[in-house]
């Protein structure tokens, strides 16, 4: 079976998804402060890598990368509620892209496997 990444339309579709996802994150009062003062283009590239991974596209991310990449945010108070908010925004993005609910649940489950690494536990 092809990955959700391929079913959505591969890289071009992910680019569109990143714009939608990033807009939601920047408008979300629960988490938007983590995104102040950062280079938007670099952040968008990282979000693209993240979406590519959770949708089953090409990636070689490791738990260590996730740990290192978020350590400075954990120091600023990143916790489970923020992680949940991001997953929620991702779900809303996929819903907007007409991804069926059971697939969104699969993606959320994949995100879940990164939780402890992202939160540095």
């Amino acid at each position, binding site marked *: 079976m092809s990955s959700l990444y391929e079913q959505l339309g591969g*890289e071009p579709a992910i*680019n569109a998804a*990143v*714009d939608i996802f*990033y*807009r939601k994150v*920047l*408008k979300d009062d629960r988490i938007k402060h983590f995104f102040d*003062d950062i280079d*938007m*283009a*670099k952040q*968008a*590239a*990282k979000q*693209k*890598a993240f979406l*590519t*991974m959770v949708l089953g*596209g*090409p*990636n*070689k*991310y490791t738990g260590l*990368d996730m740990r290192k*990449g978020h350590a400075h945010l954990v120091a600023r108070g990143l916790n489970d509620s923020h992680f949940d908010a991001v997953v929620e925004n991702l779900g809303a993005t996929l819903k907007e892209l007409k991804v069926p609910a059971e697939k969104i649940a699969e993606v959320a489950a994949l995100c879940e496997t990164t939780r402890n690494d992202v939160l540095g536990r």
Partner: protein
Amino acid sequence: MPKITFGGQTYECGENKTVLECLTAQGVPVPSACHAGICQSCMMRAVKGRVPAAAQSGLKPTLAARNYFLACICHPKEDIDVAYSDEVLQKYPADVLSITRLNSEIVCVQLRPSQPMEYKPGQFIRLYKDDKTSRFYSLASVPDRDNCNVQIHVRKMPHGTVSGWVHDRLRAGDMVKISESAGECFYVPGHPEQGLLLIGTGCGLAPLYGIIQDALAHGHRGPIQLYHGSLNVGGLYLIEELKALARAFPNFKYVPCISGAEVPPGFAAGTVLEVALAEHVDLSGWRIFLCGNPEMVSNAKRETFLIGASVSDIYADPFLPTIGSAPPACQ
């Protein structure tokens, strides 16, 4: 087997190896994360030789045009010299051809580099007062066929070491040192129907003026809208030139904005970002160019993105990260 040169050392790139694999195997520390050509952590620049187009997948066109590439997906086909994406810029001597006053605070300095310098309008150079003191200035000129003279706009800053020197000491006929051009805030031909929105404050107009002329020279047909702001009319400049350009090109619109209390007829009232956003509710599909006050640039990036502009279509040069200096346009 193609050879990769980095920092004066040359390495053989093994069969089916990427530039990233080759360099890290030799102990060269190249930052990386996804190893799939997506996160752009491993972005480098080919300073000599060409990289396969596949190694530039997903990069902004302005980065691809300057030979940036992703080391983790780059399988070189020929010998290349590579550098970190933020390597130090090369220096050239240049003659000062003229210094022209643009308003009470800003002069236009025209320079002729000792050797023809390739550049794109909107990029920036460093201007050196001496070996230790330099500032970034955006290029307001468009390279012409015969020579590669460059023009910068220099605003006199309070206690400005370099700007004070330019305003008070520098004269036509002097020789100075400048760097090669850098920066990703420039016009790339293609999509001639796309809307271009340019927002600038003060001498942040310099790169935008270069970009507008470049786009028009390339026959850009879509709307090109410039919002230039200052506290008062005296802070604006090139007003007549821009009005004339708007008369000559129906697709070019010039909106001078005044954020202070006194707003004469013909000028829009409010900060440049307020005025621009009041006239645009949906920027889907637009290309955005931003320059000037760092806070305005940062807010404008976010606000234009939130109303539809794609991150990859937003261009600004807030600073050059390695040198950690202040914005190029207004030093």
